[in-house]
């Protein structure tokens, strides 16, 4: 068996990627970038409307656009990308997907597409203009919620596939550590599973309510279950992002892994600590005591710990690699980095963006600071800096080698140059847009609100110049979307044939093997459940047992 496996792995290395696995991932990516194009177009419409430069028609108003933009980019684009990327990572590091898992990948895609069609159709018909947070008692069409269930089932099918493939590999490779990138895949999907349980329970209670079978809904319970998912999802994308930082980026700059063990510890910590972080969205909610909210400050801040470890690891890799190449002095290594290589530039800017983005996150986790910016455009700015820049630029960076690897093509200097232009356009666009959002949010401008001056109120009129910058940023980002979609499809169908490696960094020569306990998933699952219970057991029991009369449905749009 072992000999057969090695043979399979050898052929895999010689012939490159298994074409069946490549087709699966490329289908995911194609759809992801079509979704990005649609979602990006909607984003442009929103930015222009918000600045008062464009009036949207009544049959497709600001809030419909916002609902579709949010769901397409936050749920669909990221889910499609994540599954496509991690399935490719497993295929590469585990010697091909097992056929059962490949099938699961296709089934997952089908479920997600059915869900997306249901959700988008109800939004376009103006039957579900409830934003991506769909807070009850605002009530959408039941088909909107059913669509969400399909999406979740799709994600869960993909999750099961990841676990199945990892378990099968472990069985065939007794005593060996799961390759690091697949270890990341298992962690990320485990977190996604934990994070999506709450929202699934929420949606399953909303369906009978939306059909009219139950009369009222427990609003605070729904809201709390939603946020146990809402913020975890963000950290799942972040998870996907740092897997490339740890494993791919060191190789691209000609270096080695910082520490295999440290990366695995970060994975474990992210899985264990993350879910209660969502509570910080409820800091100014009624119904929770100050003591509970204070405990959640601690629980939210604990997520910053693995990120601090990541920050150290990344800069240590840069410096170490630079010095090996002969860099001198404190910052000499900066000059040794391959700035002209878009595969490096995009994730590097993503990392730099995470410094202010992470700091902003830590700041707003604290109760009183949160109160200043809650539901203001600051939050939207923070979100576009973390997800729109850190996560998405890393995703873009992955495209420049993963698509050519899968299609057996090459990244030409011309496309590399276009990629650099794309990356800079995106970065400048985000600087304008997220920067303006942060600033005007501090001044009090609310998020999720179409253009308004509140009857020419003087305070609100003061916000207009910032909103203009927001629109400029949004326009640049739209240009960035068009460039990126072009690049992705060029790399898929037009780039010259050739061989592109899957750039996985090797450990240092003197690196120690990761300890056995890193593979004890049973223990991490138990710990994660303990931490989730610590954060949510008391408030959720209280919300159920000690509930006010429920709310009937409202359709206010």
């Amino acid at each position, binding site marked *: 068996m072992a000999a057969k496996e090695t043979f399979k792995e050898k052929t895999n290395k010689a012939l490159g990627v298994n074409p069946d696995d490549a087709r699966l991932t490329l289908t995911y990516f194609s759809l992801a970038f079509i979704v990005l194009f649609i979602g990006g177009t909607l984003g442009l419409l929103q930015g222009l409307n918000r600045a008062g430069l464009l009036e949207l028609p009544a049959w497709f108003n600001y*809030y419909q656009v*916002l609902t579709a933009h949010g769901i397409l980019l936050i749920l669909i684009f990221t889910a499609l990308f994540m599954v496509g990327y991690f399935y490719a990572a497993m295929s590469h590091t585990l010697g091909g997907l097992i056929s059962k898992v490949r099938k699961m990948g296709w089934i997952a895609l089908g479920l997600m597409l059915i869900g997306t069609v249901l959700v988008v159709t109800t939004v376009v018909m103006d039957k579900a203009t409830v934003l991506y947070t769909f*807070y009850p*008692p*605002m009530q959408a069409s039941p088909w909107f919620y059913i669509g969400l269930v399909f999406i979740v089932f799709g994600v869960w099918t993909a999750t099961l596939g990841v676990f199945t493939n990892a378990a099968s590999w472990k069985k065939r490779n007794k005593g060996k550590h799961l390759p690091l990138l697949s270890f990341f895949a298992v962690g990320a999907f485990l977190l996604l599973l934990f994070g999506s349980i709450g929202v699934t329970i929420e949606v399953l209670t909303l369906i009978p309510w939306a059909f009219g079978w139950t009369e009222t809904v427990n*609003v*605070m319970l729904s*809201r709390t279950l939603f946020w146990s998912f809402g913020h975890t999802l963000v950290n799942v994308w972040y998870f996907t992002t740092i897997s490339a930082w740890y494993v791919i980026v060191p190789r691209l700059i000609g270096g080695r892994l910082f*520490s295999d063990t*440290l990366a695995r*510890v970060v994975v474990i910590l992210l899985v264990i600590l993350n879910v209660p972080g969502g509570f910080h969205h409820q800091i*100014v*909610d*009624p*119904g*929770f*005591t*100050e003591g509970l*909210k*204070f405990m959640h*400050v*601690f629980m939210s*801040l604990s997520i*910053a*710990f693995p990120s*601090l*470890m990541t*920050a*150290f690891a990344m800069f240590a890799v840069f410096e170490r690699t630079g010095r090996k190449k002969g860099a001198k002095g404190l910052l000499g290594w900066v000059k040794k980095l391959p700035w002209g290589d878009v595969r490096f530039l995009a994730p590097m800017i993503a990392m730099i963006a995470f410094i202010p983005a992470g700091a902003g996150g*830590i700041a707003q986790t*604290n*109760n*009183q600071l*949160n*109160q*200043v910016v*809650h*539901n*203001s455009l600051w939050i939207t700015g923070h979100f576009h800096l973390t997800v729109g820049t850190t996560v998405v630029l890393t995703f873009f960076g992955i495209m420049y080698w993963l698509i050519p690897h899968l299609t057996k093509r090459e990244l030409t200097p011309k496309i590399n140059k276009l990629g650099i232009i794309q990356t800079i356009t995106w970065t400048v666009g985000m600087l304008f847009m997220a920067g303006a959002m942060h600033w005007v949010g501090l*001044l*009090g401008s*609310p*998020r*999720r*609100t179409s*253009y*308004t001056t*509140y009857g020419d*109120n*003087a305070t*609100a009129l003061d916000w207009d110049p910032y909103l203009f910058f927001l629109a400029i940023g949004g326009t640049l980002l739209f240009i960035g979307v068009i460039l990126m979609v072009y690049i992705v499809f060029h790399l898929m169908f037009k780039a010259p044939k050739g061989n592109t490696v899957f750039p996985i960094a090797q450990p240092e020569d003197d690196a120690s093997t990761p*300890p056995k306990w890193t593979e004890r998933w049973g223990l991490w699952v138990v710990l994660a459940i303990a931490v989730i219970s610590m954060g949510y057991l008391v408030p959720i029991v209280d919300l159920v047992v000690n*509930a*006010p*009369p*429920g*709310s009937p449905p*409202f359709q*206010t*749009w």
Partner: protein
Amino acid sequence: MKLHRYEEIWLILGVGILVLSMVITGYQTFAQGMGPPSDTAQIDPQKVNETAPFDNPGVFEVGENEYEVVMTLQAFGFTPNEIEVPAGAEVTFIMTTEDVIHGFQIAGTNVNAMVVPGRIQTITETFDEPGEYLILCNEYCGAGHQMMSATITVH
């Protein structure tokens, strides 16, 4: 797992900042009474207009330079929506919603709270500077969300 010494220093500093921010937040919350709005009182969301004090929304002087604003929120307005108080007044807003979730934010101040069906929310602010303050709804509540506002005039 062995950590590099510099890494240890980095992590200790980082955790130190996190702990410090928690100490400050905790001190402000529990010693200075600056905690986030956290009223735990309940109400039947379908009977807001017949439940005291919301059967009679308005501005009430309750002490020397102390005011209470009993306020209901509904798509797409605040009741009352024109509030006048003298400078230096300590104003406590007691709010609930008749329909969906709304936000309550006074632009240019730190007053910011969610108002959720079935719950009563309370938040206090002292207005030292005369002028007109804009109250707005900062949680999407429907087609007219962008019109939902009110004003406080401080004399």
